[in-house]
């Protein structure tokens, strides 16, 4: 409850930042912040919305995929017991009942959550959703090695055993269902203030009980949302169509969508995607828009551009388990060497990004302003210190080591990768750049078998809590050897940090202010003593939509609602 307060406070800050960030850009055609989408305007229903992305986002399995690209689409296709409210502005952080009749009854000192499942809801394959599907979905989370199974859902009784032996996961005593009363009871090992948030993200989607317990990859899994995935070919396109079994049960959780079809086409270079939207051949660009095109779209197509402040990081995780970055001095050297002001320029300039030294983004719960690696003694980033970086590389004994920088092959990511490569060469490494399609890059850099030394990636909040950055990304529970779902990319596993994070989480229940202070200290401690990342910058999001698109709505939680756009 107390955390919700801080969430709302943060939401106010975010929305005011967002308003400021618009600057010269007009905010067009968006529904007013906080406006409900329940006032469905059927005259706008129909048509096909064309989205474009340079590459697919990997597996389509909602219990495995951890990309913003598909999480935006899952909003219209899958439901959990609860959901983040589908509205614009601050209330988008509020959790509302979805497949559950109401928010759960919380008893047993915060350790038992009792849900009543709605009746009569059907999957897109026509089968009715039952409590058995709910139980099977949570068992499957562990069986498919969900990236956060060990950091979020292991709070459920039986969760730790499921993490150890996923194949035999039953969650006995943890998830108790009663078909007669249509109830689902979650028993937790300890109270968890973020449990509802964790149920409301796509990992908590309820899918049919007979879904095979392995990553379904390109095969769509039936869902309960307004749309279903009709086809998916990662080399060409993804198509979503209206779910004929869908009826609105809660517009706040799963509203009716406007287009009849949603298509996402893969393969065009971003430059061409931007041109396609300008020409009305596509309706939205998923990828970061190249810095040199921003001037053109923000002046000639100002009414079609939407800029939003995000609680997100661009960062360069360094593998602390293999050379040369198994050496702290080498990691510190890279932190000193990279000029974050230069990286901001690659993203589009100071209007669209801010250099950062911290893991937690500004205005986020627990954020503590400091800058451990700086050209001046200041909590604000001033610039790089190449001299110190070179000295550290020499002292570390890693001078001349070969380093491969892995980055996605879209223009912005690749430029950032090329810049990092160049700086690594300047400080004494023999660096190469390995650009990979975004369809595989995110999985590739997580898998320890690929021996990735340093990479470029991004992290967008799942929900506004410090643990979503620090515990998810830098905890032993998020590190899995030889797995594509090892979200702790740097591989930092320090029991002392884990214990501090556990203390902060427990503290959130009783003293959120003190907890946030502790999270801030953990952030600083990790960067100062371990430096597993180079935090690069905090980006803003630029949504560029076509002229024909209306009803643009932006959620602080899941960003643009694709299904709420209308094209008629």
């Amino acid at each position, binding site marked *: 409850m107390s955390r919700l307060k801080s969430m709302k406070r943060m939401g106010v800050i975010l929305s005011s930042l967002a308003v400021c960030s618009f600057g010269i850009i007009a905010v067009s055609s968006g529904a007013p912040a906080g406006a409900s989408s329940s006032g469905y305007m059927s005259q706008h229903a129909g048509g096909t919305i064309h989205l474009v992305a340079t590459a697919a986002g990997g597996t389509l399995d909602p219990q495995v995929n951890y990309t913003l690209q598909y999480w935006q689409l899952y909003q219209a296709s899958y439901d959990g017991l609860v959901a983040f409210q589908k509205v614009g502005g601050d209330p988008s952080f509020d959790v509302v009942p979805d497949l559950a009749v109401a928010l759960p009854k919380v008893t047993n000192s915060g350790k038992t959550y009792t849900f009543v499942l709605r009746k009569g809801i059907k999957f897109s394959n026509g089968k009715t959703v039952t409590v058995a599907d709910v139980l099977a979905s949570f068992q499957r989370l562990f069986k498919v090695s969900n990236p956060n199974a060990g950091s979020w859902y292991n709070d459920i009784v039986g969760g730790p055993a499921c993490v150890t032996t996923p194949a035999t996961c039953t969650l006995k005593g943890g998830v108790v269902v009663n078909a007669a009363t249509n109830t689902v009871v979650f028993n937790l090992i300890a109270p968890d203030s973020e449990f509802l948030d964790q149920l409301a993200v796509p990992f908590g989607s309820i899918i049919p009980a007979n879904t095979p317990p392995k990553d379904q990859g390109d095969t769509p899994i039936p869902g309960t949302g307004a749309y279903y995935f009709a086809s998916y070919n990662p080399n060409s396109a993804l198509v979503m169509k209206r779910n004929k079994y869908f009826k609105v049960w809660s517009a706040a959780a799963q509203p009716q969508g406007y287009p009849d079809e949603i298509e996402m086409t893969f393969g065009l270079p971003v430059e061409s995607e931007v041109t396609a939207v300008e020409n009305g051949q596509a309706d939205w660009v998923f990828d970061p828009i190249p*810095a*040199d095109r*921003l001037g*053109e779209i*923000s*002046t000639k197509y100002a009414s079609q551009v939407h800029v939003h402040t995000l609680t997100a990081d661009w960062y360069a995780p360094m593998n602390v388990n293999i050379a040369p970055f198994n050496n702290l001095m080498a990691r510190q050297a890279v932190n000193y060497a990279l000029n974050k002001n230069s990286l901001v*320029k690659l993203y589009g300039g100071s209007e*669209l990004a801010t250099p950062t030294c911290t893991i937690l983004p500004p205005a986020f719960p627990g954020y503590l302003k400091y800058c451990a690696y700086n050209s001046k003694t200041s909590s604000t980033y001033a610039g790089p210190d190449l001299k110190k970086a070179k000295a550290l590389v020499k002292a570390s004994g890693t001078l001349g080591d070969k380093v491969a920088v892995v980055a996605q092959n879209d223009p912005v990511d690749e430029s950032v990768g090329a810049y990092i490569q160049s700086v690594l*060469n300047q400080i004494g490494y023999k660096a190469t750049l390995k650009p990979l399609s975004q369809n595989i890059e995110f999985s590739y850099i997580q898998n320890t078998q690929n021996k990735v030394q340093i990479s470029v990636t991004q992290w967008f909040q799942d929900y506004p809590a410090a643990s979503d950055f620090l515990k998810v990304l830098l905890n032993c529970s998020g590190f899995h050897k030889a797995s594509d779902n090892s979200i702790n990319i740097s591989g930092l596993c320090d029991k002392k940090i884990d214990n501090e994070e556990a203390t902060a989480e427990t503290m959130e229940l009783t003293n959120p202010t003190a907890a946030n202070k502790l999270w801030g200290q953990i952030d600083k401690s990790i960067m100062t003593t371990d430096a597993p990342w180079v935090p690069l910058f905090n980006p803003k999001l630029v949504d560029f939509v076509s002229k024909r698109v209306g009803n643009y709505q932006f959620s602080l939680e899941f960003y643009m609602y694709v299904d709420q756009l209308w094209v008629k």
Partner: protein
Amino acid sequence: MAEEVNIINKVAMTAVDSESPWRSSLRQLRRNRAAMTALGVLLFMVVVTLLAPFYAHHFAHDNPFVPNLQGRIKIGNHFREVMQTNTTGLGVTPVGPTWNFSKYFLGADELGRDVFARVLYGGRVTLLIGFSSGLICITVATVLGMLAGYFGRATDWIISRLLDIIWAFPIYLLAISLSVILVTNGLDLGIIHIGAGSLLLPILIIASVYVPYVARPVRGIVFSLKERDFIHAAVASGASDWHILRKEILPNVMPSVIVFFPLMVALNILTESALSTLGIGVQPPEASWGTIINDGLQLLHTRPWVAIAPGICIVIVCVALNIFGDGVRDAFDPRAKLRGSI
């Protein structure tokens, strides 16, 4: 008087008769104005690209391999950022062409690097790859073609099937496949190790995919030569196979091989550019004309010269090589129909 003229003519004819075929061909080549102009253009491009470090250090005062995202340059009386923050709207755009050789003549790329200096450096790499892979390809193909053609039987069968396998793949598909694997991971064959970013990889890949296109005609020529009297005479005199190949076959194959060379270099330059444009040829921080075109594709709408300039260079060099190649063919092997075989 008439007798005197006849004597002079006889002497002259004797002189011409005694001129070696090589000299005669070279003389003919020198008389071909188009070929000589093309050679001049080619040499000019080679010299200009070799001067890249001189230009970068003494004119541009810039290292074109290091990003210059925070740099500023003086244009007229004003200092301007290399990566210019747009004054209206959002975004950052690299400085455009200044048309001044002392600073960003062709503007900057997406990392703020001097495009003109990079085009010069890139030319060195492109030409190096073109000529080196051409030389390797011609050498390997000549050896294989001569062995297959001369020894025939099992040797011919093995070599020919090997060439058939390579030939069976579309050139670019094969080159792309090899590049994707080798450029990503490097080549590790026991004691031979070539790093992922090494220039040797594109050189070897490009050289190997074109080997059948030269080896096959060479094999055909050797087959034909083998039946000629002078070879029979050499065999009858007890000359070894090695001696016959080196002293009798090779000199007769060389004119055709020489004709192939400029054409192969032009093809190799185009292949390198295509692979690098796709991101699987030359790897950063090295630059080639292909990689610069790749960089330029990102800036095609705002800074088209980044892609156009190396494109023009490729066209100039390849046209020059083709015209020169035609001249070489006319001079050395006028009956050859090499165009159809490549």
